[in-house]
């Protein structure tokens, strides 16, 4: 009994020793020389491998940075959306362009309250599939479907569906602005925008490019393309894309004037100081619809009784 044990221990020990020696020489022979800078640069990156930079992962970006630094002497055009590239540049002995932190914004406010459900959906909970099947519960063909493809794709746990509104909400502390959600959304509702000075940003919370009359039918807070904001903006930062206003983040100075004139409350001004008692309401903190819908803006549909009972099954 003890013999067997000893023999097996000896055999395994000798075998292990021989293999270790072989492995040592093989490792020496096939050693891959890697620039130690790559490891250092990688250490500056978040390591989430989100793919937001356009590379396969953080290491791939670090490699690209080292390569470009050696060839061209700069790291222009290579950027991790969530990190200050200055650190990487410092490792490589360079200076990087000023870092502008970004955040994803959901450009739809067609919540269960603002765009009430007309149909009931039963089927696969994939936005990309539902998008091919029907316009949406509220009837808006450009609005959020609320099935959470973006939530499933987020690598940073920064997106969640709000149970009350049925819309995805971005957690500003967790979002790094990698843009994976924006690429995932089948309707292109999510946009990655600069966080702005003092975290203040103004954006149009609607993606519907249809005519105003069609928007009003389905949603009480959708942009109708009235162009009031366009006229109000002192910096010419607002342009019309179809029947939808778009605020160019490069030109916008976050004055918040457009949000005040919007008759539909489609423009959201985030993180502005709380309004003074007599000043027009402007809510701070997270994106929340500003004015409440007027009664006449409620969706009017002759056959609501019929539609509300319909089911969409694939």
């Amino acid at each position, binding site marked *: 009994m003890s013999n067997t044990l000893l023999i097996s221990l000896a055999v395994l020990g000798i075998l292990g020793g021989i293999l270790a020696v072989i492995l040592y020489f093989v490792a020496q022979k096939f050693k891959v020389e890697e620039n130690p800078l790559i490891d250092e640069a990688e250490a500056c990156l978040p390591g989430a491998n989100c793919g937001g930079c356009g590379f396969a992962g953080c290491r791939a970006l670090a490699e690209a940075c080292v390569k470009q630094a050696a060839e061209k002497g700069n790291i222009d055009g290579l950027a991790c959306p969530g990190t200050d590239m200055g650190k990487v540049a410092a490792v490589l002995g360079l200076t990087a362009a000023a870092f502008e932190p970004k955040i994803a914004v959901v450009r739809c406010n067609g919540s269960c309250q603002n765009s009430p459900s*007309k*149909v*009931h959906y*039963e*089927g*696969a909970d*994939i936005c*990309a*599939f539902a998008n*091919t*099947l*029907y*316009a*949406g519960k509220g*009837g808006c*063909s450009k609005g959020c479907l609320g099935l959470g493809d973006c939530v499933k794709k987020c690598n940073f746990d920064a997106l969640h569906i709000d149970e009350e509104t049925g819309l995805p909400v971005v957690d500003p502390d967790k979002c790094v602005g990698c843009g994976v959600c924006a690429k995932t959304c089948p309707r292109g509702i999510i946009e990655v925008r600069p966080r702005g000075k003092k975290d203040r940003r103004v954006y149009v919370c609607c993606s519907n490019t*249809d005519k105003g009359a*069609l928007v009003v039918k389905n949603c009480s807070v959708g942009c109708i393309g009235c162009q009031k904001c366009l006229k109000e903006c002192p910096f010419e930062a607002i342009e019309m894309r179809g029947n939808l206003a778009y605020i160019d983040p490069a030109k916008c100075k976050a004055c918040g004037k457009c949000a005040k004139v919007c008759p539909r409350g489609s423009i959201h001004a985030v993180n502005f100081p709380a309004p003074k008692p007599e000043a027009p309401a402007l809510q701070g903190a997270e994106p929340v619809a500003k004015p409440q819908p007027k009664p006449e803006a409620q969706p009017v549909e*002759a*056959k609501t009784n*019929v*539609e509300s*009972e*319909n*089911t*969409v*099954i*694939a």
Partner: protein
Amino acid sequence: MNPIKTFKKGGVHPEENKLSAELPIQDFPMPKQIIVPLGQCLGAPAECIVNKGDRVLTGQLIGTAKGFVSANVHSPATGTVAKVDVVMDHTGYYKPAVFIDREEQDEWVEGVIETDDLLTDIKLDSKQIIDKVKECGIVGMGGATFPTHVKMMVPEGKKAEYVIINAAECEPYLTCDYRLLLEKTQEFLMGVKIVMKGVGTEKGIIGIETNKMKAIELLEKTINEHKELYAGITVQPLKTKYPQGGEKQIIKAITGREVPSGKLPIETGCVVVNVASTYAIYEAVQKNKPLIERIVTVTGKSVKKPGNFRVRFGVPADLLIEAAGGLPEDITDVINGGPMMGKSVSVTNFPTMKGTSGILLMTLREAQDRRQTNCIRCGRCAGACPMGLQPFLLHKVAKQNDFDETEKNHIMDCIECGSCEYTCPANIPLLDYIRYGKAKTGAIIKARNQK
């Protein structure tokens, strides 16, 4: 009667529920305004060629086909164009459409022969027939709305041996094709002859399921009575089984040939045309009438007056529901098409189109999704799949967004018949995931081929 044939792989037996089978076709009265969508076929929507204020005649061309897979659109009524705008189709999406304010008097466009007599003399030759079919905007009216002229153009190096007329009507509830066979038998048979001449073959086979014995007997009797006129046309009874009317299934059942994966039915030497399309081809070639109307079955278990209506395109579907006795109270689901392949609608006032074969009102008991549980690996879906695929596997890999695997497992061969979902004891929406995977995989393959 010929011996009954069928396809071997898979298939299911849903309840037939052909409630409106014995109800004759009624002409549906036209409303004041009709809304004609420009995209009525698979492929690119037609390009509008009329403006606001124009007066259009019945049968006048209002939209020209754009691209190879596309079909012309004609005015279904006489009247003035009120506007060219968008209209919500059954999915709830806005699509371009022409709004026409109708006049009381129906005035046909020049060149149309207005007679109910049977015209047995085919004057056009093969090429002219296909051109006429194209000009008249005829599409596959079984629901897929694939332009028929594209189907009839046999590519070089291929030869069409058989024309197969798909009269299986395997979808439960629908009876529009059956009624057409009974009421327009001679016209239909002339249509078969025209298609045979168009594709250049002497053999025409009409495939009918055995639950339509009356139609089989009537067709056989008519062919025997006019042996010379309908030479080469035979009637093939098929077993009542879903999806017998699938293009690949009906070819397999009748000829025993299998369409190769990723190829068109012409590879097997068959051209398959639907009953309603065949009748439309007769009207187009012999009477010069473009496709502006079709038979729509409005049915459902609790519908008061189900029926088969001859409807001009552009009539809102809620008027049809109204004519069938209104929406019963226990209805939860309105379906455009049949219960197996049709799609639930988001709005009921969508305009009827070339592909609207039926409007089905489902009760809560029939339509509600039962509680979904986990896959128990019973394999029933694989047994039911008429294409020999493994739906449980496709569902799983599509859910994981693994599109290499979906392609390897031939997701593109899925005909979306829904047999898998019908049999699933765990009530998993298999077809939803497969459709999703199919769309994604198709896009990847297309992008790869373009490179």
